[in-house]
């Protein structure tokens, strides 16, 4: 009989702007993993697989964390794909459990990330960033996404107040998430008046940099049946990396190439979804992903922004997303997965979407030169 692995726990280490000095990267990852296991009702000695993603774990690696957490495992991985790391690890973990290589896997991500650490990370993101971008100076990807925002605005006839629908709507959701760093409602005027960062991007188009951690637990349906909690199944996962050799325009993404295969494998259509958790490093990338995956009817972007996202409050990034909750380094790649699992398990207190059964989660990231190279997406469903 085929094994169909399920997600049975999700957890976080609280996102913080200015963590105490003794709270290191491993602290955040460990707290998230422990929180996810507690949510699942599984003890650490039942775990036999572990995966981790982090920008700042060095000189430690996954095995050092295993040791410090006292885990003995048959399957281990370390993922370096940033915003796509969560779904990438999930893709591998599902196959590992299907193949019998492991039975219960914890996937965790986290970073201690303050300004200094952030700039160290971005200036040495890869060799090209170090040698061809940082010397300009560039200092992080804001300017690159300012280009993409202008390009997308031209193509779809959008103004700043159109892009603002995303951070404003997500701020509305963040009010229900005690873990978000921005929780106060934001008006259109506040958005328009916010501090310019790299025009047209302003402060509220950019993620607040935080320290934190995220984790999920995946296991066999047999073990899941013994737990007193709903399980979340994985209907399909699709990925595409380096689809255009960085020679495309960055606003026609790899998601367009995986969309048909994803929906066919999942056996559902975008209109069947109850919620979506879209990697939100910048508002423009939320639109690129929604459009390329077929969620924007007739590609009427302006109408979708004002009607579906802002007025109807169709559930996208109900944690507030990274734009309101914060981006804790590689944790950003697992943030949407954790919120999706919470929603589909009926455990999104304060912001629960009624009857949430089917959700889309995306991962996007790793800017090689001008735009992200990693794309992946998962369709998740509540199974019990």
């Amino acid at each position, binding site marked *: 009989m085929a094994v169909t692995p399920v997600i049975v726990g999700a957890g976080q280490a609280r996102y913080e702007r200015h963590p105490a000095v003794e709270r290191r990267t491993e602290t955040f990852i460990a707290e998230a993993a422990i929180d996810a296991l507690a949510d699942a009702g599984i003890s650490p000695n039942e775990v036999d697989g572990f995966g981790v993603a982090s920008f700042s774990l060095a000189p430690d690696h996954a095995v050092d964390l295993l040791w410090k957490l006292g885990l003995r495992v048959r399957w281990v991985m370390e993922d370096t794909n940033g915003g796509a790391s969560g779904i990438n690890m999930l893709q591998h973990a599902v196959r590992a459990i299907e193949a019998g290589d492991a039975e219960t896997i914890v996937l965790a991500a986290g970073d201690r990330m303050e300004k200094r650490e952030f700039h160290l990370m971005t200036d040495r993101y890869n060799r090209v960033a170090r040698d061809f971008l940082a*010397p300009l100076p560039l200092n992080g990807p804001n300017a690159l996404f300012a280009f993409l925002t202008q*390009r997308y605005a031209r193509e779809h006839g959008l103004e700043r107040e159109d892009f603002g629908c995303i951070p404003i709507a997500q701020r509305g959701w963040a009010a229900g998430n005690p873990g978000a760093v921005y929780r106060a409602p934001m008006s259109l005027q506040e958005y328009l008046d916010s501090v310019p*960062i790299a025009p047209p991007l302003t402060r509220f188009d950019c993620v607040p940099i935080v320290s934190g951690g995220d984790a999920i637990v995946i296991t066999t349906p047999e073990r899941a049946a013994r737990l007193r909690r709903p399980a979340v199944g994985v209907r399909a996962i699709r990925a595409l990396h380096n689809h255009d050799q960085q020679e495309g325009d960055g606003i026609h993404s790899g998601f367009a190439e995986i969309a048909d295969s994803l929906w066919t494998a999942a056996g559902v259509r975008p209109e069947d979804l109850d919620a979506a958790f879209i990697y939100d490093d910048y508002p423009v990338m939320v639109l690129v992903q929604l459009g390329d995956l077929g969620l924007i009817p007739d590609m009427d972007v302006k109408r979708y922004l004002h009607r579906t996202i802002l007025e109807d409050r169709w559930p996208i990034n109900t944690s507030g997303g990274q734009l309101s909750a914060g981006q804790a380094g590689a944790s950003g790649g697992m943030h949407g997965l954790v919120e999706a699992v919470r929603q589909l398990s009926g455990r999104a207190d304060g912001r629960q979407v009624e009857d949430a059964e089917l959700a889309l989660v995306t991962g996007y990231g790793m800017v090689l030169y001008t735009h992200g190279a990693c794309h992946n997406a998962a369709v998740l469903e509540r199974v019990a």
Partner: protein
Amino acid sequence: MSTPFVVPRCTNCGHLAYPPRILCPVCGHGTWGRALADTGVVEEVTVRRPVFKRRQLPWGNWLDQEETVLAAVRTDAGPRIVCRVAPGTRAGDRVTLAARGSTAIALPGQVVEAEPQSPSNAGPAQGS
């Protein structure tokens, strides 16, 4: 005196790839020459504002952090380049590209600076 901007060119199929790759993304060959990519059109412009007004250098002195005007430039030769541009440069402007810091292609630390094109050499540029 500025050095014209050059990019790697696949010796097999002629594809231009910047920043440099190991194998050509079009034909898969791995031998590279170089080609001029010193003219282009500005696609988008933004201004990067420094997070801190002053930055301390490793040897203790302080450096004023300036605003940097950055652009995506589509070269006439093909590759899209991220570079600095002179203040006042706008989307749609034609620019010439000069290598800054190094005369060789693709050396670490190479910085591309786009300068407004003087009227004497304006006009359609030759792809190479």
